């Protein structure tokens, strides 16, 4: 009975409906909806029969609102899980606006995972952009407003590129189906670019570290999960094995590391590391073998959990101290033991430390590069794995929870935040120790064995020597109260300044011309004006107006006469 009822509704709609339910409920009822609806969606995702589909006709096109692929199910599962645990974290502190926005955002992200056509995908895509902008806005600060507007512009841009691409593709092929596309024309390229901008690919990577850290402690947790990973999902379906993604992903990986190393703001460090981690997934999609695609999918799952955990710990610190810069923090392990432990578990997981979730997912991507004999890719990925430990694995917990004593003695955050962190910390370790349940739901059969003596020893070597490098180079990592320029400089500084320069020049030229012309005119006029008699100088000024007229009529007639004979 239950199953029959649920067949026809895409699970994402439950969460989107939740946004409206949360808007009109308060207190206990709101809390029940917040926790119950994501769980209901989770149950629906897994109780849908294999052949479940829901198609409607939209003009000449089939809209498939319920077409789960294996990959889609994995993403929908982790999105629903994220909504549930994020709800626990946000429960006491988030505004109703933020909660509604987060549910709209999460619901449309889940919608993307079950859409089988490009038209409904695009609609969900745009609802996501609006929902996430509202999540940033909900922080209610001046900075969050400015960041939200830049964020909205960026997504309006990527959305437009995507829309043109989709419309062009449908016009060209006659099919709106959302499945693997080949990059054989500008339409497909535009779809790819639309997806990539949302994944934080170059040159548009800056929006992540610009917008996410301006959201509230809980808002930032929601934001870290959906936009970039929905893009990873879209790339997995539409562009597996597209080689250009390998260099793009590698660039993202090192961009994330370098900028995170330069950064002082704890949540911005973690935002840069989103780009870094999504880079690994993009490389996996580019490699395109079954193992690499499995790796990218598993890594997205693991990443959402540990990145949310890391941002929860940073959010807990921000909530308790009001501070987010590493240079203002330190020594918090003494009074925030639980947050320290959970943050450190997240940091170990992102670093692919053995017995954490990152170890069993990321290694599939690097191993697939080895199996395909992609030499330089493999060497870059190995260096990057060490670099992840450097910029996120040690740097984040070290500067926030350890290093110098800042003198701050905040306590651990409210119980609900602690519960959320503990749940995700447990998931990080559970996935690392028992990877099989995750491997079982991946799109392709997994033959990979993560725990071999070889893999363990080499991974420990890589990470621990990266750690040695960190502590030896600590003097070089002294925090400075700075930000780092990025491509957003072009639209935040160069274009506005350039525009005001152009307008200033145009204005000057115009003013100068006007001045010259008017002075010339008035000089001429003054030269021919008799101030004493208050009338113009010159021959005609002495005559009566009628006399002047007669003269001109005579001239006209004379001219006419001459012209007549010619």
């Amino acid at each position, binding site marked *: 009975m239950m199953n029959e009822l649920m067949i026809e509704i895409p699970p994402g709609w439950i969460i989107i409906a939740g946004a409206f339910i949360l808007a009109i409920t308060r207190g206990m009822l709101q809390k029940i909806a917040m926790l119950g609806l994501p769980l209901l969606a989770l149950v629906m995702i897994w109780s849908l029969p294999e052949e479940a589909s829901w198609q409607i006709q939209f003009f000449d096109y089939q809209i498939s609102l319920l077409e789960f692929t294996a990959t889609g199910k994995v993403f929908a599962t982790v999105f629903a899980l994220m909504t549930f645990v994020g709800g626990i974290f946000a429960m006491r502190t988030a505004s109703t606006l933020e909660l509604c926005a987060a549910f709209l955002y999460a619901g449309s992200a889940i919608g993307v995972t079950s859409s089988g056509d490009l038209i409904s995908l695009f609609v969900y895509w745009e609802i996501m952009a609006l929902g996430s902008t509202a999540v940033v806005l909900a922080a209610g600060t001046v900075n969050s407003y400015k960041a939200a507007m830049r964020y909205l512009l960026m997504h309006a841009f990527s959305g437009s590129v995507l829309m043109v691409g989709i419309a062009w593709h449908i016009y060209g092929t006659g099919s709106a189906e959302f499945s693997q596309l080949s990059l054989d024309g500008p339409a497909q390229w535009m779809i790819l670019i639309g997806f990539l901008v949302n994944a934080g690919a170059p040159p548009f990577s800056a929006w992540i570290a610009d917008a996410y850290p301006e959201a509230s402690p809980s808002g930032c947790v929601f934001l870290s999960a959906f936009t970039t990973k929905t893009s990873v999902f879209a790339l997995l379906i539409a562009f597996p094995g597209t080689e250009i993604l390998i260099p793009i992903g590698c660039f993202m990986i*090192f961009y994330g*590391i*370098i900028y995170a*190393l*330069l950064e002082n703001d704890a949540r911005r460090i973690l935002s840069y590391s989103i780009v870094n981690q999504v880079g690994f997934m993009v490389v996996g999609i580019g490699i395109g073998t079954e193992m690499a695609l499995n790796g990218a999918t598993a890594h997205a799952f693991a990443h959402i959990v540990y990145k949310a955990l890391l941002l929860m710990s940073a959010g807990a610190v921000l909530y308790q101290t009001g501070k987010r810069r590493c240079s203002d923090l330190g*020594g918090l*392990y*003494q009074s925030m033991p639980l947050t320290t432990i959970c943050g450190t578990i997240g940091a170990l997981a992102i670093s692919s430390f053995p017995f954490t979730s990152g170890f069993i997912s990321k290694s599939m991507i690097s191993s697939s590069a*080895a*199996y395909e*004999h992609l*030499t330089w890719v*493999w*060497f870059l990925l*190995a*260096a990057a794995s*060490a*670099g992840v430990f*450097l910029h996120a694995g040690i740097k984040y917990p070290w500067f926030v929870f*350890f290093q110098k*004593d800042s003198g701050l003695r905040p306590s651990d955050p409210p119980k609900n935040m602690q519960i959320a962190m503990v749940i995700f910390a447990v998931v990080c370790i559970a996935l690392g120790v028992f990877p099989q349940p995750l491997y079982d739901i991946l799109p392709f059969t997994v033959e990979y064995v993560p725990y071999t*003596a*070889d893999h363990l*020893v*080499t*991974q*420990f*070597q*890589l*990470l*621990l*020597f*990266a*750690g*040695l*490098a*960190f*502590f030896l*180079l600590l003097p*070089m*990592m002294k925090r*400075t*109260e*700075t*930000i*780092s*320029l*990025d491509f957003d400089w072009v639209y*935040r*500084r160069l274009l506005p300044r350039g525009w005001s320069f152009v307008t200033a020049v145009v204005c000057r030229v115009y003013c100068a011309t006007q001045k010259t012309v008017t002075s010339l005119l008035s000089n001429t006029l003054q030269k021919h004006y008799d101030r004493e008699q208050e009338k113009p100088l010159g021959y005609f000024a002495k005559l009566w107006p009628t006399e002047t007229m007669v003269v001109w009529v005579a001239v006209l007639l004379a001219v006419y006469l001459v012209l007549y004979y010619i």
Partner: protein
Amino acid sequence: MSDTDKHWLVRAKTIKYLWIGFIVVLGITILAELFIHKHDYFGLDGSFGFFGWYGFITCVAMVVVAKLLGYVLKRKEEYYDE
């Protein structure tokens, strides 16, 4: 604050022991390689202690590159507010 007033984790003595412990662990991870069969794909990755020295050198390189780029890219926090 004298050393004994500090949290036990940050006393000079503890830090010394932590370093010793860390170096011992580093040594163990390298020596462990003698007892396992390492699978290499590219040749170089089969060299002794490869992941140790490669991880170390690339991390130093990344920190140095970041430091150098920092001279070009770093600006005051209020840069965009002016």
